[in-house]
């Protein structure tokens, strides 16, 4: 690992003042960035430590939550308000990583973590995300973990986060501070599809820092679940995951439904097409399969990952059936 200069930021203003310089990266928990530096995938010349910035988790006046960008993943997952009002967020975080990692990782860093595509990590492989224009070894390589939605001919990587899938379903908002001032972005607008520029994971501007995440109140979130399909029981990135929240009316119709998929695209994938099929409907098996089919209409599987289409359908059917039946404690 190359030597870097290291500065601890006292507050967001100080961090942003330093963070805009070329070669500078914000350092959250470091669980991803330090690893990438060791692998020579990232080589910042200076690090601005933002772990000391706000880690508070507070109620907002309208009934949602404001989560500091430096809140640890484990603190967020264990927070009583999150467990009671946004259980899918708690379950999503617990489905990811190990306890040791969650104790270090911050909310801001989790959002900005980079793909676990093995070709991205392998500096002997071609990767447009790591070296724009180099080509992509994943497209014709071993691509069972790669994207089935929204990929481009330049990149088929997936976003690895579990937490972000829940945030996508919750219509979260990300609070940013940067050299040009402060702004808010809807969560769905934070991550981007690769198109011709896969080296850009997000729409953040140079030097922008995630200071907080705002969760709006959502009644449906009390009836919510996160379920993850992975290679083994213990510890692996999602092959496919689903965050879901529902609210039923007296007639058993879906008054509200939120669905987001992980492991399928370059960004956490809000399944709006499926939601549109389901909203106002009774979610029987036929309707749920229709919803999955609508979401997957544009899917284009690669050589090794066609199984993900089946998994998406099965997940949507299984998780929503459980939620409607009142088995909200769907396994992570």
């Amino acid at each position, binding site marked *: 690992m190359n030597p870097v200069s290291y500065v601890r930021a006292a507050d967001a203003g100080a961090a942003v003042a330093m963070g805009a310089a070329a070669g500078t990266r914000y350092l959250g*928990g470091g669980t991803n960035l330090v690893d990438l530096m060791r692998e020579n995938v990232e080589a910042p010349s200076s690090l601005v430590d933002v772990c000391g910035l706000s880690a508070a988790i507070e109620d907002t006046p309208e009934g949602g939550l404001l989560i500091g960008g430096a809140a640890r993943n484990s603190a967020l997952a264990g927070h009583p308000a999150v467990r009671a009002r946004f259980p899918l967020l708690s379950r999503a975080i617990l489905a990811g990583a*190990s306890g040791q990692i969650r104790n*270090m990782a911050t909310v801001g860093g989790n959002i900005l973590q980079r793909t676990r595509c093995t070709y991205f990590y392998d500096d002997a492989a071609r990767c447009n995300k790591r070296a724009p224009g180099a080509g992509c070894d994943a497209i014709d390589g071993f691509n069972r973990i790669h994207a089935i939605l929204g990929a481009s001919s330049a990149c088929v990587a997936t976003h690895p986060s579990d937490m972000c899938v829940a945030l996508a379903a919750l219509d979260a908002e990300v609070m940013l501070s940067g050299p040009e001032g402060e702004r808010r972005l809807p969560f769905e607008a934070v991550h981007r599809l690769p198109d011709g520029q896969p080296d850009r994971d997000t729409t953040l501007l140079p030097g922008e820092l995630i200071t907080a995440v705002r969760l709006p109140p959502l009644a449906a979130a009390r009836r919510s679940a996160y*379920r993850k399909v992975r290679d*083994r029981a213990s510890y692996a990135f999602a092959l496919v995951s689903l965050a879901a929240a529902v609210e039923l009316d007296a007639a058993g119709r879906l008054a509200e439904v939120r669905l987001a998929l992980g492991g399928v695209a370059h960004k956490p994938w809000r399944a709006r097409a499926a939601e549109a099929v389901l909203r106002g409907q009774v979610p029987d098996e036929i309707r749920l399969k229709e919803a999955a089919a609508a979401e997957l209409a544009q899917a284009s599987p690669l050589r090794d990952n066609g199984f993900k289409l089946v998994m998406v359908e*099965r997940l949507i059917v299984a998780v929503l059936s459980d939620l409607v039946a009142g088995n909200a404690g769907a396994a992570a």
Partner: protein
Amino acid sequence: MRLTVDGLPETLAPRPGQCLRTALRETGHHGVKKGCDAGDCGACTVLLDGVPVHSCLLPAFRAENRSVTTVRGLERDGTLHPVQQAFLDHNAFQCGFCTPGMLVTAASLDQEQRQELGRALKGNICRCTGYGPIADAVASLDLPDAASPRDERSLPPPAGPDVVRGRAGYTLDAAAPAGLLHMVLLRSPHPHARIRHIDAEAARAAPGVHLVLTHRDAPDLLYSSAQHERYVDSPDDTRLLDDVVRHVGQRVAAVVADSVAQAEEARALIRVEYELLPPVLSPEAALLPGAPAIHRKDAAASRIADPERNVVGTVRDEIGDVAAGFAEADIVHGAEYRTQRMSHAYLETLSAIAEVDGDGLLTVRSSTQVPFLTREALARVLELPRNKVRVLCGRVGGGFGGKQEMLCEDVAALAALRLRRPVQIEFTRTEQFEAAPCRHPMRIGIRLGARRDGILTAMELRVLSDTGAYGNHGPAVLYHATNESIGLYRCPNKKVDAQVVYTTTPPSGAFRGFGLGQVIFGLEQSVDAVARELGMDPVRFRELNVVKPGDPMTSTRFALHDVEYGSYGLDQCLEHVRTALDAAREEPLPPEIATDPDWRVGTGSATAMIDSAPPFGHKASVRLMLREDGRFELVVGTAEFGNGSTTTHLQIAARTLGTAPCRIAVRQSDTALLDHDTGAFGSTGTAIAGLATQDAARRLLALLREQAAAMHGGAPDTWRLDGDTLSDGVRHLPLSALAPLEADGHASGTPRTVCFNVHGFRLAVHPPTGTIRILRSVHAADAGHVLNPMQCRGQVEGGVAQGLGAALFERIRLDGNGGVENPAFRSYHVPRLADLPRTEVFFADTHDSTGPLGAKSMSESPFNPVPAALANALFDATGVRFTETPFTRDIVWRQLREACPTPASGARTLQTDGAPAGP
């Protein structure tokens, strides 16, 4: 910067970019271990203000003014933390390298988290134990009244207290010698190339750099990194640094500098001009006419069977008349199987410190299973007199065959000789995957003929083994793979056509089971298939066909005839697994499986036989001394890498002498202490080194008696050792009065005996999702008289865990260039606690006539039947043969979808009301 470490103030001066783990280790906090570098393995876990984190991912500056607790800080006033005590009580470690991180994590858990241990410990890898004793140890914290798991025969491992305190000294835990330098290796990016030119001037001029070695500095001499008692068992095809590279990751140059960081920076400055040569990425391609010869060497001098055709070695033979055997058969079954490339994944990576003293004595402290053979190899390669080389081990953090090689000692020693300064080398986890030998991938063809009455009439075995770029262990593994596998069956007609070939991929090497695991994966499935075709219970079919005492054990004429039935417990093992599976079939299914018609349930078993030691001799040396203080010292040549051989040596010595194990101190694995010892491989720790221990103890006891008789009269055999006195019933002599005395013990590794393992599974598989749930796992082992049941059970459970890793998760994938695609634990899936079932272990009641106190070996073999047993259970459940490991979830799903699109249970092809995910 200031911080608190284990309750005491500490000052660290971390370099920019340095992680907390390295900063702590450089300051002597060696309880913190390095197993990976990526937050995957958990060996470096510390508490930061009471919260467990991976110290390898934490920039050291982060710890300023904070409180760090390592495993050494868990004790309070000299009293072990309850979780440390529980790990001791349950033997919840073997090599112990993961233990500090495991303990720190476990100590941080509250009662609720302990209930979900699979989730709580998913950040910690243990490669040795299979996690059963770890789960029991943690569970015991909430069961204070539970009975002790330890029976009176199960002496605890003598290193235990040091292991759980984080005080056991692994290879790089010794105090750094003055002037220590660090070496890193530049590795090849190409699978096959000739080095035209290396420009290392900029690197040599870089700050802190003392030396850059290239092929111009290397002795012009070929050797094998593989180590055996008989040096000629592997081909001489390796140069210390070569001007031809034959796999991505091969050493090209070595940089020595004041720090690892400086060496890495200088390494980036080396420019190498390569002439690319055509790669050969599969054994099939290697055998094609016109394929490039990877080692164009003299066949006789290098001991390569056919260098022009890339064939390293062959086993070709026929006994009886196989054609006649097949003609006589009522059914003939044929199938082909493949096994994958696999990593040993021991947690302590390859490492060594080499130094040269004023007398020119080269001393290498190394993580090796074979210190004496490494001394021989260093002397040969560096052209030194053997008395000018000393090799010793600290505690060795796992091996499983992967440290039966000289893989880093040679290059570190060359640098130390050149610089006359101590040089340390430590592989990264990535290097472990890219350059340390893996298990030989094999293609296995089986043909079996059998009569209606269930008797095998012919066996034909074809094997194509991929040794990768170098032939280390290739021929020996092939020989072993084709021997005890078919030797298990009493069939008069057998034919073997096997070859091991070079490819330009990372080299293969010795791996637990030494080739048997691969062939047994195929053979035991074919045996199962024949039994089913005959309408017979597969266990019954095996009972009809396996060898029994008196039967010749035959495979090929290459087999040595020094193997005898010192004991025979296979009948008991088969009977036990049959009974257990019969009972398991009657057990109610978990409700979520019972209520879902898509789940298929099945049972299966497989059998394995193994010789108790390698062929061609395995020499063990032991010295037992009575010291002036009346206590004993046992000096053992062989190494221990967690398998518990040291414990059994203590037991054997104590029982033979008639004293208590606590009166015996052990030293081991140091060429300065004894003349020669073959080392720790081939499951010889108890069976062979134990015999040498018994020999030494008998001789010392005889000396004691003679001495007592000479001093005080009476026949020598009237004197008995009783604790710390020698007594003839009337007189009592303190041992110190007879000291000093010493006796040497030896064992030659012949004759050998055979050991047996049978594994059974009951499982459920869910075709719509590819999910496998193991409902019952039973293992029966014939280890002779089991000296230490807890420890032996640990060997079995650990072997089964590795077998399940091979069957379900683990695969090193190569890219189109022959480089490793997944050189990290996050993409190479070693099982974690939540991934494994508990296995019920049964020991046959036998007493071996050749082994010490009736014991025989039980170290490699529990692995061998596991993947085949799982595949047989999968077949029983689904009617589909899984012929290639691993059976990952997507492969199970795909193969079942293709083979049985319409489940027998109903018309639905997609299950729609269950949980697709795991727990």
